[in-house]
């Protein structure tokens, strides 16, 4: 089960992206079709099923490097990008209505849920995930916010440019591992 994390600037420029493969067991209340299948028939059948439903979970793609930067290969990557971009409209709508930071889940696409967090400086943090995990995601968003602020305070970091710091990357991964 994987999570796709994106950080966007106020002008919707992508500054950071990460794909995190969670080792935690799925806690969903049956959102994906595959969860209704008996447990012995997991990988092959479930994989095909989710691929048909538009976006695949990462289990098929373990061989491709799960890096912090954009992965070139894998057709599902495009779907992920498309979902993330489509959700921006939903995010802006919620932003106009309410004035909170943590927007919980703003959009749903097949089995992908999009949760968003908007900072005071209008930076958007977006997570695409399959299972409902509000608490973990909330904690993760707060962690991500703190890490982002620390990076922004670095005098060598130019605002609204892609974040390339390895320290930031490793800390985000650690937080993702802990909370997602």
């Amino acid at each position, binding site marked *: 089960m994987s999570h796709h994390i994106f950080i966007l600037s106020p002008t919707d420029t992508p500054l950071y992206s990460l794909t995190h493969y969670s080792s935690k067991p799925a806690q969903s209340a049956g959102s994906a079709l595959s969860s209704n299948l008996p447990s012995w028939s997991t990988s092959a059948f479930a994989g095909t099923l989710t691929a048909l439903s538009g976006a695949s979970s990462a289990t098929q793609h373990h061989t491709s490097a799960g890096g912090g930067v954009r992965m070139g290969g894998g057709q599902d990557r495009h779907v992920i990008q498309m979902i993330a971009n489509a959700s921006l409209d939903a995010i802006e709508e919620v932003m106009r209505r309410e004035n909170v930071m943590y927007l919980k889940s703003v959009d749903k696409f097949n089995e992908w849920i999009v949760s968003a967090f908007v900072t005071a400086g209008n930076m958007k943090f977006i997570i695409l995930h399959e299972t409902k995990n509000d608490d973990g995601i909330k904690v993760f968003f707060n962690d991500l916010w703190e890490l982002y602020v*620390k*990076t922004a*305070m*670095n*005098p*060598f*970091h130019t605002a609204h440019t892609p974040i390339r*710091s390895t*320290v930031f990357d490793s800390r985000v991964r650690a937080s993702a591992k802990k909370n997602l």
Partner: protein
Amino acid sequence: MATTSKQYKAIGEDLWKNKSEKVNAELFALTYGALVVQLIQDYEDYAEVNKQLEKMGYNIGTRLIEEFLAKSSLGRCADFKDVGEVIAKVGFKSFLNITPNITHAQLQPTTSPTTKSQSTGATPGSMFSLTFDDNPLAEFVELPEEALEGGLWFSNVFCGVIRGALEMVQMQVTAEFISDVLRGDETTEIRVKLIKLLEEEVPAGDD
């Protein structure tokens, strides 16, 4: 009459608590960071930036020593070891609220030492190292690749301050960074070496 290390600590602590105006640490760190980044953009050569930071520190040090001596009302140091102790425990403490650790060493002078000017107990070739556990200037800083390769010493202003301040009290020293955690080293360390005592202004009869 010799002031002990504990007394220096107490003096430093008292100066910091009671006789210092405070400024927001984040503002201070951000200002210094912006300064370094601007210097890098202007000079585009990291060795040159190091030199400029040191020069700026020198100008700060020549003025800082007056305020320091006025506030602390410390007398002359007995020897170079004392100088190091005062800088570490009183100087850095009262201005930055940090106390670097100090280790003393002595280099053998290459030529035979002259007998007359060594009565103060500070022989040329004496040196001490200051090791910083934390550095308020480098609070949020991560050096980019080019700065690491170019050899930037981010806090080089410290070296200038030490050199400037000591020159005003008749000691010619070199102060330079040996290692820096921003560069990936284990510790942040400055080595201060005494070159010679400057003789022109020594008032007669002073101890």
